[in-house]
C-alpha cells in the first residue's frame, strides 16, 4: 500500500533550522513543509511591503532553503511553505534565483496569491467578529486583511510540477492537506479523508510540539535530548490514517501523550474544527503506540467545508510602553512594592494618558495575578518590578518606561537593571468573506 512521507521543517517563523536539515537528509521525505506565519506576522509583513515593494516575505526564507535544498533535491523531496507572507510572488522570485545560484536550474517554484483581500474588506459592511461593527468602521486603522486559503491551490501547483510551493496566508493544516490530496488523488469533496488529512496537518504544523517539545515537566513528563529535538514525520496511508514518527537518533520522543496534547492544541469544539478545506471532526480520534517513537493516529473524519473563509484583520491600535527594574536580598519584595506605588503615583501626578495599566512583580504575581499567586508564601530572594500601559501615541508610551528608569536615583534602595521599551500594537481581528471573493492563483516560475 502506498505511503506518503511528509515532514515538518518549522513550526514558527524563528524555529530551529537543523531539524529540517536532518529531516531532508535522513527522513526519506516526499514533502517537507515549513509553517512560519503567525497571525501577527502577516500584518507586520504587509507594513514592510508597503515601504518596500520587494519586501514582505519571511526574512529566513533564504537561510532555510540554503540549508535544505541540496538534500531535498537529492531525495526528491518537494517543499511547501507559507514563508511568502505578504509577498509570495517576490518570495518565489527570490527562491528561484537562489536555486539557480545553488546549481539547480530548471527548478519549478510556484507562488500562490489571492489571500490578500484588503480591497474587498476595507470600507465593506463585513461584520467584525470581536466588535460586531462593520469593517468600514475601522477606517484607516485597518492595515491588512488576509483570507485563510485552503489546500486546493497548493495541490494544483504540485500537479503542475512545482518543486517548491510558496504561499501567503494559507490555513496551517492546508499546507499538509495540499500535498496529501495531490499525492493520493483524493477529491476535494471527500470530507472524510480531508478530515483525516487535516488531523495529520494539525499534528505536524507546530513541528517539535509533537515530538516532545513544549511537553517536558521534570518528574512528571521527562523528555530526553531536547537540545537536539527532532522534528516530526507523518507516514500517511491511502485511507488517511497516519503514523507520527521522527528520524532515529534525534532528540525528543513521539508517544501517545505528546500526540494527544498536539491533537487538542488550539482546538475549540473537537467535533467541529473549521478550515477552508473541511469541517474536521477529531472527537473520535484514537492513538496507539506501535513502536519506539511511532504512534498511529486514526479515527478523524469530516463534514462539508464552511461556506465562508475566515479573514484575519491587522489593525493599528496605538502603543504600549513598559519599564522594568530589579531588587534583591532582604526586603526585596517590600522595596519592589514601594517602587510600584511610586510609579503609580508618578504616572497620575505627571498626567501620563493611558487607557490600561499593569503594575506587577515578576517572580510574585505577574503571570496570573494576586489570587492565583498568593499560594507560595516564601519570601523571594529577588523580584523584578514591571509597569506596562497602553497609550495612543509613541511619545506617551515612552513616558512609562522613563518613570521606571527614574527609580534609579529617585526610588527605593538598590534598584538595578532597568529596561524600558515601546511597542506598536497591531491588534488582530477577524471577519468572514464569501469564498468566491478570494480567488487563489498559482504563478509558476523557473530557476
Amino acid at each position: 500500500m502506498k505511503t506518503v512521507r511528509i515532514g515538518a521543517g518549522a513550526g514558527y517563523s524563528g524555529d530551529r533550522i537543523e531539524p529540517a536539515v536532518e529531516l531532508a537528509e535522513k527522513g526519506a521525505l516526499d514533502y517537507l513543509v515549513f509553517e512560519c506565519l503567525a497571525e501577527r506576522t502577516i500584518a507586520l509583513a504587509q507594513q514592510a511591503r508597503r515601504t518596500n515593494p520587494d519586501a514582505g516575505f519571511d526574512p529566513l526564507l533564504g537561510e532555510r532553503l540554503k540549508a535544505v535544498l541540496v538534500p531535498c533535491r537529492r531525495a526528491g523531496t518537494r517543499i511547501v511553505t507559507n514563508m511568502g507572507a505578504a509577498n509570495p510572488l517576490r518570495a518565489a522570485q527570490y527562491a528561484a534565483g537562489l536555486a539557480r545560484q545553488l546549481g539547480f536550474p530548471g527548478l519549478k517554484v510556484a507562488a500562490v496569491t489571492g489571500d490578500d483581500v484588503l480591497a474587498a474588506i476595507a470600507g465593506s459592511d463585513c461584520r467584525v467578529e470581536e466588535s460586531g461593527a462593520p469593517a468600514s468602521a475601522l477606517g484607516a486603522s485597518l492595515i491588512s486583511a488576509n483570507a485563510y486559503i485552503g489546500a486546493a491551490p497548493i495541490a494544483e501547483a504540485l500537479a503542475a510540477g512545482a518543486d517548491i510551493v510558496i504561499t501567503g496566508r494559507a490555513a496551517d493544516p492546508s499546507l499538509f492537506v495540499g500535498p496529501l490530496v495531490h499525492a493520493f488523488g483524493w477529491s476535494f469533496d471527500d470530507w472524510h479523508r480531508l478530515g483525516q488529512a487535516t488531523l495529520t496537518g494539525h499534528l505536524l504544523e507546530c513541528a517539535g510540539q509533537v515530538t516532545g517539545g513544549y511537553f517536558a515537566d521534570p518528574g512528571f513528563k521527562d523528555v530526553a535530548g531536547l537540545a537536539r529535538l527532532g522534528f516530526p514525520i507523518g507516514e500517511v496511508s491511502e485511507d488517511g490514517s497516519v503514523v507520527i514518527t521522527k528520524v532515529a537518533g534525534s532528540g525528543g520522543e513521539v508517544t501517545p501523550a505528546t500526540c494527544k496534547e498536539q491533537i487538542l492544541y488550539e482546538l475549540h469544539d473537537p467535533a467541529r474544527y473549521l478550515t477552508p478545506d473541511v469541517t474536521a471532526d477529531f472527537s473520535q480520534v484514537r492513538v496507539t503506540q506501535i513502536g519506539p517513537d511511532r504512534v498511529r493516529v486514526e479515527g478523524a473524519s469530516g463534514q462539508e467545508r464552511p461556506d465562508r473563509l475566515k479573514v484575519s484583520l491587522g489593525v493599528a491600535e496605538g502603543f504600549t510602553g513598559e519599564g522594568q527594574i530589579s531588587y534583591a536580598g532582604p526586603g526585596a519584595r517590600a522595596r519592589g512594592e514601594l517602587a510600584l506605588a511610586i510609579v503609580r503615583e508618578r504616572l497620575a501626578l505627571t498626567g501620563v494618558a493611558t487607557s490600561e495599566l499593569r503594575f506587577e512583580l515578576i517572580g510574585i504575581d505577574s503571570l496570573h495575578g494576586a489570587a492565583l499567586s498568593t499560594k507560595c508564601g516564601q519570601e523571594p530572594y529577588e523580584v523584578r518590578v514591571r509597569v506596562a500601559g497602553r497609550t495612543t501615541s509613541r511619545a506617551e508610551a515612552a513616558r512609562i518606561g522613563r518613570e521606571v528608569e527614574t527609580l534609579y536615583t529617585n526610588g527605593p534602595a538598590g534598584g538595578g537593571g532597568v529596561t524600558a521599551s515601546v511597542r506598536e500594537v497591531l491588534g488582530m481581528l477577524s471577519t468572514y468573506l464569501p469564498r468566491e471573493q478570494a480567488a487563489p492563483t498559482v504563478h509558476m516560475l523557473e530557476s
Partner: protein
Amino acid sequence: MKLRQIAHARTGDKGDTSSIAVIAFDPADYGKLAQAVTAARVKSHFGTLVAGEVTRYEVPSLGALNFVMRQALGGGVTRSLSLDTHGKSLSSALLDLDIPDA
C-alpha cells in the same frame, strides 16, 4: 491531591480565547477527571483572570477534556499587556487544582 498527579495539560490561544486540554496520564482516570474538573470549577479556579464563559468539551477516546475560556487573554495575544500574552502558562495554573483523592 492535585490535578497534576493524574493529568497533563497544554494551552492554546485564538484571539482573546484560551483553550486548555487536560489529558489523563492513564485513560482509566478519565472518569475521575470528568467528575472533578467541571467548567464551573475551572471558571472559579481562574477567578478574575477569565472574564467570559468557560465551555467544556469531552474527548473520551483520548481520555481528555478541552476547556475553552472566553475573554481570558487581556484582549488577545497582539494587544495584551501581560508578559505572557498568549496565556501559555495557564495550563500550569490549572494543574494546581485540588481534586478528590479517591
